[in-house]
């Protein structure tokens, strides 16, 4: 039994191919990313870009859901939620930033090309960007956010950053100082939730090289080195009518639910890495004067036990979200809003817990906890940055209140 398997997950629900893919990814990221960390640290061009290219184009994560006739792998049954969880957990274990980028691509694919809800016209328009050639396509979202624009139309308490108008030649998008979720400097495709005057919002796919998109200077962040983010301006960006993935809330909620699954799995993977780090520490660190290794001391053992408990629970929660998405009917089939709310609750729970867990681990490891050589602090920075893009927890609590207390004014 591997150390990872000590933490229960529904391995019986995973197909053999899912397990093989996870094993292959585990070996790949160990060799390509984890073994090179001290050598390359956060070198985007030397470490992260080649790894991202291999994951997305060579292993083919960016082709997973698309129909075979369009060059994809057509792995698009609802059970693919388990594939997403198993794959992103392994990638997140090596680098949360890489998993964060892959989560965007997989969520979009699932929302557009999943069996049963596959949008054929849209697939035909977009799949070639993902499937043709061997270049990685970085996907980014422009989601409602805490807005400085007081007049911005709201979606669930947050401001929609981009406005769109429909015309005979398609859609025209406008927005100033728009902040995408990731890779504003590099993304090849943006999924943008747009406000439409007097109508329901539209979720529109915008190729990154569209005329009218300008990218601001890449900004400095404390984490997620794999994402080179920058603010964007959309000035009269025109896209064909077929690029509108869906109108209204339902499809968007489905997209977010799959996105949250990816983030949950990335968080679970990061925690597995944290376990490996604290285990090595506990096995080898000798308490001065007593000749006793850390894990044999009752006090430190209790703290290590608590860390393991948090990791175990978070992993179960991440796979539980995969289970919900693979078979929503089994959970009552209350519609996309119910699934979205569950996904939002689970992913926030995992990230709050992960932050607490890594914090405790850093404290336990004293100066090694924040030393770059031990890698631990990197996970804290990465997960904290993902939390920022996940959105304010206080606003998420309002989403929970809407669902459970049927609030009228939030």
């Amino acid at each position: 039994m591997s150390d990872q398997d000590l933490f229960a997950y529904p391995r019986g629900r995973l197909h053999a191919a899912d397990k093989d893919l996870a094993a292959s990814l585990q070996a790949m990221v160990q060799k390509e990313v984890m073994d090179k960390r001290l050598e390359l640290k956060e070198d985007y061009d030397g470490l992260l870009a080649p790894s991202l290219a291999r994951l997305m184009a060579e292993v083919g994560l960016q082709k997973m859901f698309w129909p075979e006739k369009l060059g994809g792998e057509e792995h698009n049954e609802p059970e693919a939620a388990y594939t997403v969880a198993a794959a992103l957990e392994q990638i997140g274990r090596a680098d949360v930033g890489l998993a964060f980028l892959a989560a965007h691509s997989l969520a979009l694919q699932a929302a557009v090309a999943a069996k049963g809800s596959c949008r054929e016209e849209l697939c035909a328009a977009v799949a070639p960007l993902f499937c043709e050639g061997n270049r990685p396509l970085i996907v980014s979202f422009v989601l409602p956010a805490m807005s400085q624009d007081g007049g911005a139309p709201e979606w669930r308490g947050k401001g929609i950053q981009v406005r769109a108008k429909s015309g005979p030649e398609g859609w025209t998008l406008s927005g100033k100082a728009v902040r995408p979720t990731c890779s504003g400097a590099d993304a090849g495709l943006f999924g943008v939730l747009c406000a439409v005057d007097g109508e329901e919002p539209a979720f529109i796919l915008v190729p990154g090289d569209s005329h009218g998109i300008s990218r601001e200077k890449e900004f400095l962040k404390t984490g997620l080195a794999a994402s080179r983010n920058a603010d964007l301006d959309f000035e009269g960006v025109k896209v064909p009518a077929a690029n509108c993935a869906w109108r209204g809330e339902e499809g968007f909620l489905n997209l977010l639910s799959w996105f949250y699954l990816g983030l949950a799995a990335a968080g679970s993977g990061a925690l597995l890495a944290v376990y490996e780090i604290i285990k090595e520490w506990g096995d080898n660190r000798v308490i001065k004067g007593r000749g006793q290794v850390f894990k044999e001391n009752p006090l430190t053992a209790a703290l290590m036990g608590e860390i393991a408990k948090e990791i175990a629970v978070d992993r179960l929660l991440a796979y539980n979200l995969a289970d919900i998405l693979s078979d929503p009917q089994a959970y009552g089939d209350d519609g996309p809003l119910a699934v979205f709310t569950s996904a939002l609750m689970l992913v926030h729970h995992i990230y709050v817990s992960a932050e607490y867990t890594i914090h405790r681990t850093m404290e336990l490891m004293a100066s090694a906890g924040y030393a770059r050589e031990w890698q631990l602090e990197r996970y804290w920075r990465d997960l904290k940055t993902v939390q920022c893009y996940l959105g304010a927890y206080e606003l998420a609590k309002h989403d929970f209140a809407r669902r459970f207390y049927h609030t009228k004014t939030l």
Partner: protein
Amino acid sequence: MAELNILVCVKQVPDPEGPPSAFEVDSAARKVTPKGIPPVLSPFDENALEAAIRVKEAAGGSITMLSVGNNLSKAVMLKALASGADRLVTVEDPSCDQEGLDAFATASLLAAAVRKAGPFDLILTGRQAADTNAGQVGLGLAQLLSIPAVSVAGKVEVNGGTARVETVLPDGYEVVEASLPLLVTVSHEVGDLRYPSLMAIKKAKTLPMETFKPADLGMEPGSLVINEITELTAPNRERRCRLVEGESPEDAGAKLAALLKEDKII
């Protein structure tokens, strides 16, 4: 020329990246037992498979993987198949335990399997196995099949009935052209084996796989030359500390460099 038939000979070994402490040397039983180390494809054999995939991409054809051993891991073989091979042939039997077979016996079994499952135009092997590092099986196989061999290749190309091989030398490389059929031993300069996609992983299970016993190949287990290990001991590591002193730091550095050169460390 008809479709190019490429054969890649692969060996399953304990992961050479495993820590030395995970290998238990049992002097009494004269065995080295890896503890908790997963089996993998020998890394140079992975390079050979990558070379074969590149040849196939450029010149077409099909790739057969061939392995001899006992208790071969299905997962290891499927992963390699998924990377780009088309067919798997194994020779499996307790008498084929890698620890017992010597290089000639392994080459003999491979040669018999090649005659049964072939013919092949191009045979690729790793330059040496990661467990024994002997580097004898590939060239032995060429001798037994009476075909030419080129060793330690960094690049392999096929054009019609001719192969162009860049062989790795200590100070550069040499280009060799040879007609097919040909055996080439491949070095790591070729590049790492690619990672399989999900679709390839799914497809690998449906690819043709055949397993032979030595008897199916006309070889009786008793006829195989078996290694006899007469003595096995763990290396006795001695640690000695020597202080290098000098009149100045530069002088001490020069003396240290001279000592390191003397011990052939630099």
